[in-house]
């Protein structure tokens, strides 16, 4: 068993597209929608979740044989909550503006279903290294959707990307474009995710219901 055997590669690759946590497994939607009105918080959120899922997967996988089955959920929650507290304090110290924008949603990573889903479904049965890869794969799969949604919402909603005025520079306002305020509100996030799901299922017929 090499570090990147076929099985390990699968653990890393499948969550990116075929088993994407957001569009296929329908996990972690709450934060995926809430932090995406700008690109920057979406990237920070994606990174935080990736780190936390990977770390939590490793920790739970290391202690998986010592956790009593009946209280495993609480053990998992405490591990996750401790990691989230760490990330939240780091963000407050080094990226205060972003942590204000993310507001309660950083804390809500604790109840993000991706975490509990992966811990239950993967880390409880697998060794630390595959669990780590599985965590990275799921985190990146999640971050990818966040970035795609945030890209469109920020571009059409405020005309900027990472606060750089893209539409102004390429002269869209001169030919009469107006910022679409709806893009910054909640309904646009739902509909954009719907479009991603639509596209993915049109491409991959095996996902259709």
């Amino acid at each position, binding site marked *: 068993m090499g570090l990147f055997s076929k099985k390990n590669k699968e653990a890393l690759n499948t969550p990116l597209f075929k088993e994407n946590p957001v569009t296929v497994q329908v996990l972690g939607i709450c934060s995926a929608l809430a932090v995406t009105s700008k690109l920057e918080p979406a990237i920070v959120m994606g990174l935080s979740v990736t780190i936390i899922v990977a770390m939590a997967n490793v920790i739970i996988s290391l202690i998986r044989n010592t956790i009593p089955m009946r209280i495993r959920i*609480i053990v998992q929650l*405490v591990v996750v909550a401790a990691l989230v507290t760490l990330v939240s304090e780091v963000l407050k110290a080094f990226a205060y503006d972003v942590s204000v924008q993310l507001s309660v949603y950083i804390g809500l990573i*604790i*109840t993000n279903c991706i975490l509990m889903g992966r811990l239950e479904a993967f880390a409880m049965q697998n060794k630390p290294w595959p669990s780590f890869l599985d965590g990275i794969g799921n985190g990146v799969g999640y971050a990818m959707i966040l970035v795609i949604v945030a890209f469109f919402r920020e571009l059409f909603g405020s005309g900027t990307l990472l606060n750089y005025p893209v539409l102004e520079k390429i002269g869209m306002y001169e030919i009469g474009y107006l910022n679409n305020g709806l893009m910054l509100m*909640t309904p646009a996030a*739902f509909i954009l995710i*719907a479009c991603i799901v639509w596209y993915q299922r049109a491409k991959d017929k095996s996902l259709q219901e």
Partner: protein
Amino acid sequence: MEHFISLLVRSVFVDNMVFAFFLGMCSYLAVSKSVKTAVGLGFAVIFVQVITLPVNYLLQTKVLAADGILGVDLTFLAFILFIAVIAGIVQLVEMIVERFAPALYNQLGIFLPLIAVNCAIMGGSLFMQQRIGLPADNSQAITCFGDSIAFAIGSGLGWMIAIVLFAAIREKMEYCNIPKPLRGLGIAFITVGLMAMAFMCFSGIKM
């Protein structure tokens, strides 16, 4: 009293957990295939919310805050303690319901553990923590124990209304001829998007 009602109405319609903050989406999408189960889950959420949120309010103001009984600012521990309180109470409620109301347990049973990780519950507690510091004339401010109960009822009820309406629409959609790739999750998201637009009409309400 006025603030109590205003906070209640506001958290049901304007600050709706689903349509304004996207909270509790996972179970919202997964358990909304029939109105009956949606009502069951809705009640379970209100129930757990009304118990956990005031408890967390007391924990936050009396223990964790700098002027609490310990005299030390421990708010950085809030995440761990809130989730522990929620998980503990859910476990307790599950055991009590199983013992004294087996019929209810059979209906709610599968949902109760789900609710421990429902973001609407944790989100409610985190929003409460954020709103304690707001000035008292702000209609979102939570200034006393009563307010935290109003917010708990309101946010739970808002979530329940959202899931019951959505389940009703989904039941009707069973008979629609939807393009294949959109079936299931795709059309569900578009429906929620349209419902969120409809709920935006409430945003001007002031009591």
